[in-house]
């Protein structure tokens, strides 16, 4: 017989965890989903964001989430510069498919090795007053180290949705994914728009990294664990759908949590990717894809 208390707690943790998955994947939904840039190095940039947050905490006693927000503009600028290199080297020449992917593979290793050479291989963790604190609400035990990242990722998704839906640049980003030529005829420079979009994608890595640091100890290669997961979420969501990314993240988080609790944690990844395959079987474009 299903234990209701266990079920509610598993569901709650799953939702909170799913929100964090959304934060990890949301930048990729822009770069891969809207721009068709297969940024394999996206998790590596998240790890870079985690290290940035860790250093801010170490040097300035800065809260990890605040550190992530403060680092966002720098990551945005790096993203813009990176896209420019990518465009000039690959996209303009039509070589983005394989060579572009190889570029990001190389970038992933450069980031990882750079972190190792700069900071060593030891684990980094976040220090914050809310880590280790849990609120009991009736049956539910809600750990703050999951609740706050969940709220932050909701805010990220909401801001990105507003930006993409209510601003000219945001609509231009969505337009460039649909019809580049039409966008040019509207007087917008597609390359500049894509630069901004890629900058946003990498900017999200600063915040996502700080959230990751709150949840688990981070070392330079931990990003590799999440490559499959973030791409799975973006594909499950439907390419380019930010709201879909949130729903997909929540779906996978809840599935993992419930399966771990009631059937055994070993089954959790199988069920998660099973859901992905099942959804793609019925809706090849993903949950919210067109």
């Amino acid at each position: 017989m299903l234990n209701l208390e266990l079920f509610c707690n598993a569901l709650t943790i799953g939702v909170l965890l799913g929100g964090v998955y959304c934060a990890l994947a949301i930048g990729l939904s822009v770069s891969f989903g809207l721009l068709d840039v297969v940024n394999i190095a996206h998790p590596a940039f998240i790890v870079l964001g985690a290290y940035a947050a860790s250093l801010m905490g170490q040097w300035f006693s800065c809260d990890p989430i605040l550190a992530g927000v403060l680092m966002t503009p720098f990551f945005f600028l790096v993203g813009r510069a990176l896209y420019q290199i990518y465009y000039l080297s690959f996209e303009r020449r039509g070589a983005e498919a394989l060579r572009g992917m190889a570029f990001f593979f190389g970038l992933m290793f450069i980031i990882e090795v750079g972190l190792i050479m700069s900071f060593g291989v030891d684990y980094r963790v976040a220090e914050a007053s809310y880590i280790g604190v849990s609120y009991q609400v009736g049956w539910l035990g809600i750990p703050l180290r999951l609740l706050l990242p969940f709220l932050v990722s909701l805010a990220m998704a909401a801001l990105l949705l507003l930006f993409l839906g209510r601003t000219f640049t945001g609509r231009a980003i969505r337009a460039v994914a649909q019809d580049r030529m039409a966008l040019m005829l509207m007087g917008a420079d597609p390359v500049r728009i894509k630069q901004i979009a890629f900058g946003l994608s990498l900017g999200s890595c600063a915040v996502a990294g700080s959230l990751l640091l709150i949840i688990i100890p981070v070392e330079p290669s931990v990003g590799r664990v999440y490559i499959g997961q973030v791409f799975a979420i973006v594909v499950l969501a439907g390419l380019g759908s930010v709201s879909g990314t949130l729903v997909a993240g929540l779906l996978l988080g809840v599935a993992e949590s419930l399966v771990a609790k009631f059937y055994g944690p070993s089954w959790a990844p199988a069920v998660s990717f099973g859901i992905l395959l099942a959804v793609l079987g019925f809706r090849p474009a993903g949950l919210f894809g067109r």
Partner: protein
Amino acid sequence: MKARRSRLGSAARAAVLVALVLVAPAYAAEQTPIRIGFGMALTGGLAAAGKSALIAMQIWAEDTNAAGGLLGRPVELVYYDDQSNPAVVPGIYAKLLDIDRVDFIVSGYGTNQIAPALPLAIQRNRIFLALFGIANNEDYGYDRYFQIVPAGPRPREGISKGYFELARAQGLKTVAIISADAEYSQHSAEGGRKNAAENGMRVVYDKSYPLTTADFSPIVRAINAVAPDFVFVSSYPVDSSGLVRALNEVGPAATIKMFGGGMVGLQYSSIAESLGPKLNGLVNYDWYVPEKSVMTPAIEAFLAKYRDRAKDAGVDPLGRYLPPWAYAYLELLGQAIARTGSLDDAVLAAYLHENPTMTAVGEIRFGPKGEWEQARSLMVQYKGFTKDNVLEALDTPGARQVIYPDSLATGSWLPYVQGKQSGG
């Protein structure tokens, strides 16, 4: 006369040339280093320990060369990063043997990284010294395998034997077993099941989790739901950290008197620092702790050298967990070579089987499968950790009290909840 002198001169020159040709290879061989090859986790999840092990091995090589080398020849370490990824290990060892043509191979760090290398060593009939592997040779029974961790002749059970004996002494009857989906954890969990059976205990929860698990509170709640008397955990560093955090957030069930057992990572300074007072009350395995009954001058002297090198290397600054053993397993090889005067794998293996060998970690006698004849695993209970004193506590007596075996005990067992309050 002139022609005779000329013939004599030519003969002399020829004789010198022949002598040089005959002597030069032997002279060159004397100067050629003895090359020891291995893969080591320099990146990835095990790198925090792997890099510290490498420093220890480099110290051994320097010490050995400073003392004149082995058989008059310097030693040289040839190593590659195995990225904490078992899949790349066979390729590394194939390269070491076939391309680099090293004289000896030793293992990388950990059961997961030893398992894929051992078949190649067996195939090539090479002596193979292993660093912190649990039961890698149990099924092969290879007679040239030697393992440095003192888990005893039955390593699967040896690592947790003390944990289950402590539980039996306290009258604990039901156990929950949780383990990672990885080689070490599964071996250790299997040992836990055997120990539970031998001690007449009932296993009320027995599940494993993937290494990618980010949050462990569902697992802790599921364990709480079955209300075990104690929990045996067999986990890796990141998951050890996650499980301890989840345990502190969710809180243990009232029935749980003991938690821990086989958690890798709590011994690392970085993980311990991140957990701080959350460590209090846990009972876990260890091999060498700064307790008076366990400390040795040899290891402390080695640690002084290690710490000097570690401080700028971004690795465990204290080095009490892995480095002394990494130094010792090369000591074994070095001593076997020096005592036998041979580089033959069969001769060295026979020597190590037949003779106890004194190393920095003490005297070692091997059983037929290359495990220690006598187990020397400790069970320690964490007490008195606060947020600010972790590094100091890890390095001074009193915080990791030995509670098993009795002969080395420096403290007594406390139920988990009581031990948790010891930090104040």
